[in-house]
């Protein structure tokens, strides 16, 4: 199939549809409105359902109900809206339901801005709502990758019975890039005997629930989740290593910022300084082992995390490195997208220091 030029926030819903998503519940918020708009036009024509909920709270609970019924279902929002969804996401995690949530991050806290940001890293990777849980968090850095990751997102959600978040920034949503919707290798998916579809007596009665009032029962559920998270950490890490071999400095960045860092790496190269990039594609599970391996090279003197945040992912980087080599941070919270030039300048300047 030929490549077509497509905006991220139209390519993402199209990819979701191609991945079998037929149900979408959402609420308007900038900058992600193209996603519900696209779904509202397409889903009714292919036997699905788009519904504009009365709030993000309602939308995520509609997702909960649809997921309980066994559907491939999705919602999308942007930072303040995703905060509202956290209650529901915790219930979905606790009830072990699959679904996909897209967050087109904007600047915060509070109402913040509508410009790109990476300020929701903590919220996305540490659970976000109450209780001990994780989402699988996928961070695309191009429109094509966002398309490809949508297929992974739905498969991972079904395989591990967990909510999966596509964590992108406004740039991924607004940008047009060539995309190709190619066939994806279909992973083996489990059946959903737990879905509520009407009890005919041919299986145990299905109850979708996150209430375990007895201490040992709740423990059992949590142990099950933790075992699953361990398996995800072992099997599902995705990371791009870019020019890391023999590099002197290793940048760790994700999403659009990682793209800017690639341009900064080219600028450093012109000055004869070898810089590499470790780009986590799964933010959770974080590519701890891969980062450490790259950093262990003799050539590598230090690490630099670049983010549009006050250094949220940088905390995971430091945990992973655990003091093995110096780890520095460059970036600002809010919505300031750093330029390739300033990142390169910072790298060169701190090198001389």
């Amino acid at each position: 199939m030929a490549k077509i030029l497509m905006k991220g926030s139209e390519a993402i819903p199209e990819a979701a549809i191609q991945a079998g998503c037929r149900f979408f519940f959402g609420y308007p918020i900038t900058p992600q409105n193209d996603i519900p708009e696209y779904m509202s036009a397409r889903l009714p024509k292919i036997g699905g359902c788009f519904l504009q909920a009365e709030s993000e709270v309602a939308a995520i609970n509609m997702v909960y109900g649809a997921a309980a019924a066994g559907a491939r279902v999705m919602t999308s929002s942007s930072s303040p809206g995703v905060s509202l969804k956290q209650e529901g996401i915790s219930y979905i995690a606790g009830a072990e339901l699959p679904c996909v949530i897209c967050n087109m991050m904007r600047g915060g806290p509070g109402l913040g801005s509508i410009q790109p940001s990476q300020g929701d890293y903590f919220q996305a990777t540490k659970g976000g709502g109450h209780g001990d849980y994780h989402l699988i968090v996928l961070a695309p850095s191009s429109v094509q990758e966002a398309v490809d990751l949508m297929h992974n997102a739905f498969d991972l959600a079904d395989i591990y019975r967990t909510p999966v978040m596509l964590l992108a920034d406004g740039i991924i949503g607004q940008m047009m890039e060539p995309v190709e919707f190619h066939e994806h290798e279909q992973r083996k998916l489990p059946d959903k005997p737990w879905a509520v579809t009407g009890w005919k007596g041919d299986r145990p009665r299905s109850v979708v629930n996150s209430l375990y009032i007895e201490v040992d029962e709740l423990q059992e559920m949590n142990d099950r989740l933790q075992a699953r998270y361990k398996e995800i950490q072992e099997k599902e890490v995705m990371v791009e290593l870019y020019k890391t071999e023999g590099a002197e400095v290793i940048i760790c960045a994700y999403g659009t910022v990682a793209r800017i860092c690639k341009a900064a790496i080219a600028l450093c190269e012109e000055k004869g300084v070898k810089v590499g990039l470790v780009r986590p594609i799964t933010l959770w599970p974080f590519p701890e082992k891969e980062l450490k391996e790259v950093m262990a090279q003799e050539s590598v003197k230090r690490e630099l995390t670049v983010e549009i945040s006050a250094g949220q992912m940088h905390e995971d980087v430091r945990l992973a490195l655990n003091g093995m080599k110096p780890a520095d941070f460059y970036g600002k919270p809010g919505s300031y997208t750093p330029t390739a030039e300033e990142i390169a300048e910072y790298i060169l300047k701190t090198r001389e220091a």
Partner: protein
Amino acid sequence: MLWTNIFAGFGGQGVLLIGKLLAQAGLYEGREVSWLPSYGPEMRGGTANCSVVVSDAPIASPCINMANCVIAMNRPSLDKFEQNVLPGGKLFINSSIIDKKATRTDIEVYYVPCNEIADSLNNPKVGNMAMLGAYIEATKAVDSKSVLDALLHSLGEKKAHLIPLNEQAIELGKQAVRDQIK
């Protein structure tokens, strides 16, 4: 080759569109492309700009700070983005409504009377196409045929009758650059 471009102007001048046409044309020619609009409150009524990258190699960053080419369709755009042209790069100025000259001396500057060209074709809307014509003449980043294919894709068959008019605008924009080079 790598072309990094910033297209800027008033909302309604069609700068986002010509940026898109360039990206689409690049795609038709088998290149890597990206198109990134500035978005936000300025989308509504104020200035609009987009970053377009056309490249023979995979594109590192779609976010452009320093560009090979800046296209300024109005005065605020020139004031804002003149400094963002890389040394040796190109600056395109809509001389119909920008009375100011470029201050930089380390870049190539092209003055394109977009509005006059559009007026000469009796259609005020094609000023942006004249600018795109000037851009492709000066950069050879893409072929004008690919741009017209992209325009047809954008307009749809129903509006295909507008193609010759746009082709003329592109041609006159190219001519403006050729005249200056002479």
